[in-house]
């Protein structure tokens, strides 16, 4: 189940506040490792490691631009995660609305046949 594993990696990557900070920063536009490291107050080496985790999880993509490495948001995995919440939201809406309608209808029919007041 490859997709489940990538999803797990994405959730694990997001469990760290520094990495969430990186994603929020990249949400405003691409940045180099150096541009990410300085405001975060961590070393280039440390930032490279965080970016690597995010890249492995499919949350960020990087490319070499001159002597720097440019990072940008790759939101595919987050879209996947959100899709699951939506999937179950729709499923439960369908189930509870369906059950409610089913018994409301049944009760209406029973009441009509018995001639009892609602």
């Amino acid at each position: 189940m490859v997709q489940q594993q990538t999803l797990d990696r994405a959730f694990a990557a997001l469990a760290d506040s520094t990495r969430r900070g990186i994603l929020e920063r990249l949400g405003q536009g691409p940045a180099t490792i150096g541009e990410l490291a300085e405001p975060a107050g961590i070393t280039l080496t440390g930032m490279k490691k965080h970016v690597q985790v995010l890249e492995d999880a499919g949350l960020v993509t990087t490319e070499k631009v001159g002597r720097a490495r440019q990072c940008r948001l790759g939101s595919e995995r987050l879209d996947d995660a959100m899709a699951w919440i939506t999937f179950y939201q729709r499923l439960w809406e369908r189930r509870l609305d369906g059950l409610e309608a089913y018994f409301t209808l049944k009760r209406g029919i029973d009441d009509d046949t018995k001639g009892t007041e609602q």
Partner: protein
Amino acid sequence: MSETTETIDLTLTRVIPATPEEVFDAYTDAEQQKIWFSILDEEPGVVEIDVDLRVGGKQTAVWGPDAQTLFREEQTFLEIDRPHRLVTDSVGWEPDGNSMTTRIVVTFEAADGGTLMTVHQSGFPTPEVRDFFQSMAWAGAFDRITAYFRR
């Protein structure tokens, strides 16, 4: 891995106008499910439901607007306590083949006006992920979900 593995739990409730026994049976019976699962569909679509109601047995639901766009959910029964409580592991499949596993606990309690049905689903992404969604492009999506599940 030293990362947190805490998950988001979703809880929703609804009062269904029938007794706990009636609701439990309608919820778990394949023939009744086929009726109520699509009772509100405006256009006919695909609905296939199979139930093997015993601990270790499975319930499979396949549905969608057409045969090319099918969703699928397979629940494995872990606990069956008619008409009070039902515990299952659920695997959902989207049409593209992606899947995800969650745990579902459904309880049925006699209440004013019928049966209070409570669904508790766990195994969703971490709270950090939820916070991230809220602060980013998906702002509002979880609010809508929470609003629905509290209805």
